[in-house]
């Protein structure tokens, strides 16, 4: 059993599941061997912000047919994470596609860290940043230098004031 929260991107979860199942495929069945690979490619593109119109429909069709036209349980169940995340978290898929946005703040190609008005200038984020992307400004609003930021998430974790947004 795996526990997720709202910082886990369900498109990313499906991608990771497909990454392991497509690598485990024995390669005998057309649909499992090539179909899981194609589903993985679509998910990788979406997580990289390169989703294309029709990707969601392609994922749905592939997921349905791969599960119905495979000889063993691997091919039959590998599409389940895709099918169920599409069923329950379709809005996250659509955000990746239409809005080029990752609502969970996980997909690195689609996010930026921005300090908001809650900042009290405690400098905890600047201390936490491993690459010096946040200048020390005691008692003043801090700022993340986008060109230096490596999206490591340390500032978000360090902040006690809910002052960092992932957009």
């Amino acid at each position: 059993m795996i526990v997720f929260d709202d910082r886990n991107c369900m498109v990313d979860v499906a991608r990771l599941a497909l990454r392991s199942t497509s690598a485990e495929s024995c390669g005998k069945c057309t649909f499992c061997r090539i179909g899981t690979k194609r589903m993985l490619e679509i998910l990788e593109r979406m997580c990289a912000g390169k989703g294309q119109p029709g990707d969601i429909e392609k994922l749905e069709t592939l997921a349905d047919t791969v599960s119905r036209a495979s000889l063993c349980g691997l091919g039959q169940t590998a599409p389940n994470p895709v099918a169920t995340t599409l069923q329950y978290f379709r809005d996250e898929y659509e955000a990746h596609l239409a809005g080029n946005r990752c609502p969970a703040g996980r997909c690195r190609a689609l996010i930026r860290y921005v300090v908001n008005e809650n900042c009290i200038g405690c400098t905890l984020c600047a201390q936490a940043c491993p690459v010096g992307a946040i200048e020390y400004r005691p008692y003043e609003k801090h700022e993340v230098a986008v060109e230096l930021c490596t999206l490591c998430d340390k500032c978000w974790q360090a902040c006690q004031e809910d002052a960092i947004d992932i957009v």
Partner: protein
Amino acid sequence: MISCRHSMVTLTIDNRRVGVEPGTTVLAAAEQAGIRIPTLCHVPGIEPAAGCFVCAVRIEGRRNLSPACALPVSEGMVVITQSEDVRAARKMALELLLSDCTDDCAAISPLVRSLVEEYQPDVCRFTGERRTFPKDVSHPDVTYDPGKCILRGACVQVAAAAGEPLGLAVIGRGFHVAVAVPFGKPLSEGLRRAAQRCAEVCPTGALALRRAAR
């Protein structure tokens, strides 16, 4: 049709009742009933592989599609060979296969060509990464182009049955799985006596007789 029920199995294929010997595959039963199910990786006379799923059929009462070339008949089975979802699955199988083969694949193999004509796959629907296709031209009688290989493994079976010391094997797994001679040896060492027969059973001509040898 003989109706000695204790020795025959009766089933329905596309609303046609047919009685066959127990152990007959759905594909063979359909043929007896005059119904043609398309195939790609089916090679008569050797164990079916059932991997390509071009012969997919729907069995009433089952969610999953079944490969007709390998599924044995059972009493009262109801088989549908031409429904919309079955045809869509066959078309998708071709689209997936053609998304991972050499550009001239459909043109070269008559069997693939006829399937493409019948099912009109959209070859651009599932474009993506392709395997690498290192050709093996080391053998005097046959050439091997992995770009046309659909991983049927008929050649593997035939080489083993012919007692080839090295023969061929399915190497690796997943998307990059490949049929090759074990230990990275060239085809000339893998197929010392079964080369022609292997080429004869290859459904796509990935393993093909050199034109000069004909």
